[in-house]
């Protein structure tokens, strides 16, 4: 079964410092990987996705993620954190169907709360 794991419940970073939010995955076949962000009392906003191609994926708001097949990881990164980046971050993988084909729904990790202090 497809799954993602976010090993950290919370990440604390000082404003201006680089940030990393970790995600590892377990899939059968090629992974379709996503990062989303959720602000309080709001739905999820899409940040970026990896389907194929370059291992470094650039997304919204200055975020990027590095796909590492050998380590089955897809960590979210940003060179310089902002206080406004404080939010809940979710890693997700596209589900597979009964016969291995990619399905539409996503399987989400439990989320990592990012706190950026001034």
């Amino acid at each position, binding site marked *: 079964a497809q799954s993602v794991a976010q090993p950290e419940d919370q990440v604390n970073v000082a404003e201006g410092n680089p940030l990393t939010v970790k995600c590892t995955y377990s899939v059968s076949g090629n992974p*379709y990987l*996503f990062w*989303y962000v959720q602000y309080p*009392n*709001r*739905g*999820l*906003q*899409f940040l970026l*996705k990896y*389907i194929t191609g370059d291992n470094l994926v650039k997304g919204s708001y200055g975020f990027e993620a590095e796909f590492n097949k050998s380590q089955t990881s897809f960590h979210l990164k940003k060179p310089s954190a902002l206080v406004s980046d404080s939010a809940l971050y*979710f890693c997700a993988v*596209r*589900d597979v*169907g009964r016969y291995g084909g*990619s*399905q*539409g*729904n*996503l*399987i*989400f*990790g*439990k*989320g990592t709360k990012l706190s950026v202090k001034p």
Partner: protein
Amino acid sequence: EAGVTQSPTHLIKTRGQQVTLRCSPISGHTSVYWYQQALGLGLQFLLWYDEGEERNRGNFPPRFSGRQFPNYSSELNVNALELEDSALYLCASSLLQGAMALHFGNGTRLTVT
């Protein structure tokens, strides 16, 4: 472009009652997904509809059901509400073809007392 809209935004129900939540997808999107976000449990996949048909279902009991209408809007119905059904219910939409991202609404906050 209007985003995914959900109604109502908040709802309070009593245990044993039934509830219907509604979702309108982004124009042109044919797939609608429902997720439950309960405190401390992350996002749990409930249901996926496309072209009016249920395509996949998460590990939830049959009292969670739904449907998709010809205009691609969707309803989520929950019967015999239990206290643990209290959660934020999120709807998302996407184009089916390709590895498209899901676009989420702001959710319906359901409280069961």
